[in-house]
């Protein structure tokens, strides 16, 4: 038996366990839809990611159970056809091709690694016009460079959330002229691009953008360049070790102590390295934990089902990825990729009735959809609303340094973040 066949058998087994009959509808034809309705899933079930994937796959399975117990899709039960990508692009693309061409799924959830998700979007889901919702891939290019043609969504906040929060805080503190020094990686480039997008609209100006490469003995040249236009403040996006050098050189050369920092600097090492007494006017941003009744309901359902808690990366976002597909399929006029794609944007409609997590809430949502009413989905990650690019936002927090202690200044709720996104992106 080849490795591929073994994996197909394994995936088939997972699919069977995920299939639950819904009140005898198993073989029925409902609304011209062939039962069961298949949803594709791609996750690295084996390979280096496997340890974190276990809970994520269970979360997807839980979502399918909740959908089926809550009425399924257009009267049909849902079947999750899960394939392994082994964390490798070639295997992932193969799996996506199988799901689209053989299983004929109109929507896929997956996958974790951005390195696998990217090729799947480019060579399978976008050209085949199949909706893809990822729990975990953060590379910002997927939703921005047009390759997805609007078919790709993700349920976890990207660096955009932190970048917009940073821009908002800089503007709020009345700092008009800011220089940016950023680490020359995808993360640093993304953050800078988003801050650049947001800050001018919120009343700030960027006087310089200076990239730096890590592990240099000195950053005087970069700091001098950032200082040239005499900014009122510095936004430093990077990692603690080099940031210590940069901040010390910045202050030595006469830079302002009003320094905005990204989440990586929210560590004692950074504060001690620079010297606490120089950082009393510094502040930073980080992602905050989501709270709310729908989040609690998911956590309890997960604990009851599997016997351990739902803590871990991707668990909450994967549940919402599958639930979003389930809701969108019910809203869509037919089960084709383009219809589902448009419907994904209607799961959190303005003025809709709030629906949450779990089978009962799903049943309520299906009922509302049948009556032609709008819904507003609040999931395991809180209110789930995709922006124009297919990204979601999350709550953020602003931290400050007071006498060497890193303290949370205040948190920005997800609703406030969504309002901020609308203000920036129009």
């Amino acid at each position: 038996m080849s490795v591929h066949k073994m994996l197909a058998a394994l995936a088939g087994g997972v699919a069977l366990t995920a299939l639950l009959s819904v009140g005898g509808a198993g073989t029925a034809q409902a609304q011209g839809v062939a039962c069961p309705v298949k949803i594709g899933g791609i996750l690295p079930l084996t390979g280096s990611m496997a340890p974190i994937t276990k809970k994520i796959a269970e979360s997807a399975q839980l979502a399918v159970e909740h959908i089926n117990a809550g009425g399924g899709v257009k009267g049909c039960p849902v079947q999750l056809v899960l394939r392994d990508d082994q964390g490798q692009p070639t295997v992932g693309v193969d799996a996506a091709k199988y799901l689209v061409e053989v299983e004929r799924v109109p929507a896929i959830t997956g996958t974790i690694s951005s390195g696998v998700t990217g090729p799947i979007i480019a060579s399978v889901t976008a050209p085949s016009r199949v909706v893809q919702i990822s729990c975990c891939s953060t590379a910002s290019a997927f939703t921005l460079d047009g390759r997805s043609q609007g078919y790709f969504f993700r349920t976890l906040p990207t660096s955009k959330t932190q970048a917009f929060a940073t821009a908002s805080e800089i503007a709020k503190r009345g700092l008009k002229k800011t220089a940016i020094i950023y680490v020359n990686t995808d993360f640093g480039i993304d953050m800078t691009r988003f801050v650049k997008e947001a800050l001018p609209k919120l009343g700030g100006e960027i006087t310089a953008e200076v990239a730096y490469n890590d592990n240099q003995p000195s950053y005087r040249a970069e700091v001098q360049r950032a200082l040239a236009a005499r900014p009122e403040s510095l936004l430093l996006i990077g990692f603690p070790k080099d940031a210590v050098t940069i901040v010390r050189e910045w202050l030595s050369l006469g830079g302002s102590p009003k320094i905005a920092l990204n989440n990586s600097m929210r560590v004692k090492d950074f504060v001690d390295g620079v010297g606490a007494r120089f950082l009393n006017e510094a502040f930073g941003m980080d992602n905050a934990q989501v709270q709310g009744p729908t989040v609690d309901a998911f956590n309890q359902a997960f604990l009851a089902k599997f016997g351990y808690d739902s803590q871990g990366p991707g668990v909450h976002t994967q549940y919402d990825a599958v639930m979003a597909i389930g809701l969108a399929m019910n809203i869509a006029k037919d089960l084709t990729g383009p219809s589902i794609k448009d419907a994904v944007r209607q799961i959190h409609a303005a003025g809709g009735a709030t629906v949450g997590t779990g089978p009962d809430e799903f049943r309520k949502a299906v009922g509302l959809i049948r009556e032609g009413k709008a819904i507003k989905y609040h999931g395991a990650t809180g209110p789930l609303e995709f922006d124009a690019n297919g990204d979601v936002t999350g709550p953020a927090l602003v931290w400050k340094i007071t006498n060497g202690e890193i303290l949370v200044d205040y948190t920005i709720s997800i609703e406030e973040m969504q309002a901020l996104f609308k203000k920036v992106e129009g």
Partner: protein
Amino acid sequence: MLGQAIADGVLTGAIIALGAIGVSFGLQILRFANFAHSELLTWGAYIALVVVAFAGPGTPTGPLSFGWQMMAAMAVAAVLTGLLAWVMDQLVFRRLRNQGAHPLSLVFAAFGAALVMRYVVVLIWGPGTHFYTRELQFAVEVLPGIRMLPDQIFVLALTLAVVVALHLFLTYSRTGMAMRAMAESPALAKVCGVNVEGVTRWTWILSGALAAVAGTFLGLSPQVHPEMGFSLLLSLFAAAILGGAGSLPGAVIGGLLVGLAENVSVLFVDPGYKGAMPFLLLLAVLFVRPQGLFGEKQ
């Protein structure tokens, strides 16, 4: 802006030059590329750190951020790192040399020695960063538009003093002359009665001592960490080769040019490409003078 970039370039270049002298001697006198040299910088910085930990950086002397204890620490580090370099030679390279090992074997042995030395640092002092002093200095305007830290001016002056002293040593002392003879032609030097083992030993000790001074300066601006030497390795080699292997003025000018190439280029290109500039300069020089700026044609 240009004046400031040149000043910054000279400062970075001075530290690279001190390290490059050892690499240059290694290339010409010991006849192999010692990739473990960068670890001597790291060790020098850590040895000075130990002394500072016991004695303290001292009360700041005048505008400097440290006192005489820091100077003493540097001297101790120079002596001990010189000895460490010699021990490294005795343990690793001498055996290989005596067995007539291929120069490439010596290079790989140097890689191995470098890794061992770096991880011993991690083992003893941990992977984190350390500081000689928590003081933060503020730059002073030395010339219109050129701001420098007092510590940096001190580093520059001391580098100049060390280079002049070294030049005098090489020109007038017996050992210095023997070292230059070895650099010219090991075989001829041996025939003329030069004590090859002695010259080799002095070369290692001098290289180590200079590396320790460079490492301590590097640690002053501003942190000491296990990869500090390694991240400078390519710059050291670029400087040594640019100047011409075996030439003291070559290594110093090479170091300054590397520092200037990095800092001045930032005015014209994206700082993200800063690291590539010294190597573009190196290629340009080697196309015209394959032996380096001050190197002798073989």
